[in-house]
């Protein structure tokens, strides 16, 4: 145990020696990882906050099923319980004709005078159908609507809130761009990290050859380089978190209006601890993977 710790300490020393031996190339690698993670982190934050805004207006995510005229209350209840069994449906509430009218009156205010002349309530009864967690997306809405469509007694279906679909599409777009960028930037970063480690391997080639000749295993020779990549990646992750936090704290408040437009007044939030850890892990992973790629390409004769 203490032997493994001592071994790890000596590997760490070797890795740090490697980083300080070429501060410029190491610095470039760290900065590259940092920039990549800043961009990815910014997209992740944007998506997270946009989704949170949807959660905030959670009620907006429902499907309204208008019932055919003249459906008896008995039949309405039967239909409601049938709708509740549809996959993706979390709750079903019956809104009677009278309740619909009361809501309408409350909603349009003075415009209610429009209804005064009518002898009969023109509003249909409806089912207000809440969505289960996994279905709060444009495709989820569509799927639930599709399943409800066939039920007899339902005359019309609407998700009620067209903007929600648009907003969901916007989130999907931001997320898609984020992922696309993630893949491209991660590849570019991997190349740069791999190159940094490859240079480090080359500059210490004589030393590594001697280590091999006195019987060092490949793991013994390679571990310091893997650690070097890992440390660079973690450092890039810390750098990215600091930058993102600085922007979040110092710059964002100056753009209140723009924020309000995107988030609708929901206070933006920063990463949770586990999300921050995930970003660090992503940086470390990039560094480790880049180093492993460099070692693999260098140990090939």
């Amino acid at each position, binding site marked *: 145990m*203490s*032997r493994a710790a001592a071994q790890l300490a*000596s590997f760490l020393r070797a890795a740090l020696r490697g980083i300080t031996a070429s501060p410029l190339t190491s610095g470039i690698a760290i900065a590259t990882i940092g920039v990549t993670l800043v961009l990815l982190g910014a997209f992740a934050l944007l998506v997270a906050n946009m989704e949170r805004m949807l959660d905030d207006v959670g009620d907006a995510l429902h499907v309204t099923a208008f019932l055919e005229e003249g459906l008896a209350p008995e039949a309405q209840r039967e239909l409601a319980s049938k709708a509740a069994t549809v996959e993706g449906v979390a709750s079903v509430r019956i809104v009677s004709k009278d309740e619909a009218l009361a809501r309408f009156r409350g909603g349009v205010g003075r415009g209610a005078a429009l209804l005064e002349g009518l002898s009969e309530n023109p509003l249909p009864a409806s089912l207000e159908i809440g969505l289960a967690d996994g279905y709060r997306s444009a495709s989820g809405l569509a799927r639930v609507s599709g399943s409800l469509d066939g039920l007899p007694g339902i005359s019309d279906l609407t998700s009620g809130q067209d903007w929600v679909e648009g907003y969901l599409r916007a989130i999907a777009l931001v997320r898609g761009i984020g992922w696309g960028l993630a893949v491209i930037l991660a590849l570019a970063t991997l190349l740069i990290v791999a190159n940094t480690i490859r240079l480090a391997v080359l500059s210490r080639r004589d*030393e590594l050859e001697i280590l*091999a*000749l*006195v*019987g*060092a*295993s490949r793991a013994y020779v390679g571990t310091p380089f893997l650690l070097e990549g890992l440390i660079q990646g973690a450092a890039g992750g810390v750098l990215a978190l600091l930058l993102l936090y600085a922007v979040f704290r110092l710059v964002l408040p100056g753009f209140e209006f723009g924020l309000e437009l995107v988030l609708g007044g929901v206070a933006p939030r920063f990463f949770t601890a586990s999300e921050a850890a995930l970003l660090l892990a992503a940086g470390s992973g990039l560094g480790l993977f880049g180093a492993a790629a460099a070692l693999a390409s260098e140990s090939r004769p």
Partner: protein
Amino acid sequence: MKLGPSRFLGRRRPREYAGGGRKAAVQLYHVSKSYTAGHYALRDVSLEFGRGEFVFLTGPSGAGKTSLLKLIFAAERPSEGQIVVLGRNAPRLGPAATPPLRRRIGVVFQDFKLLPRRTVEENVALALEVVGAPRRDNRAKVFAILKQLGLQHRRFHHPLSLSGGEQQRVAIARALVNEPEILLADEPTGNLDPELTVEIMDLIAQTSTRGTTVIVATHDYGIVNRYAKRCVRLEGGRVVEDAPAHGATP
């Protein structure tokens, strides 16, 4: 189906190779080594070195001495032939099995191969560290071997600040520190004055009395004669003489 004698031999031979007997530390069977097409550094060399044996390898420059040593610790592969070292088929060992074999072999390189950025002590400890031995235990061993070689006062110096002879002794210390089963020394006294040569050669000879197989490549016929051990002479990559030890002790 007929089992001819040759077939029988053919089946038995590999078992002999693999086992290596209890006495043989190194066996070479019809080994040739060619770095560049058409030119042989070693040609059809068949030799056997027993456990605890002390052998000199001599011959003019370019005869193939260093090449032979490199084949033994699997730094090179033979172009033809078989090599069995400590019961292992050395050239066929993969990247995972080669390091463990090398840890059982101490090598004093002709050009020392010390790490310039590490101290003398760290250079010697390297041979122990690659095995994963804890640092604290290493210190005592390293100090003991450095003292034997008269280098204890130099242990915190860097190799490049040492004289050629001192560097050579550091290389010897590194090769001996983990008590290898085979010691390969390539011109281990090339940079030493005559008195130190005798001292160091005595130390190397001692290790063979403790069971280490010692193979010393040298031009120096003075020490070859002094020790009266088995002497293999190479010329142009061929074994031209294999003189057995002739009794006299140093």
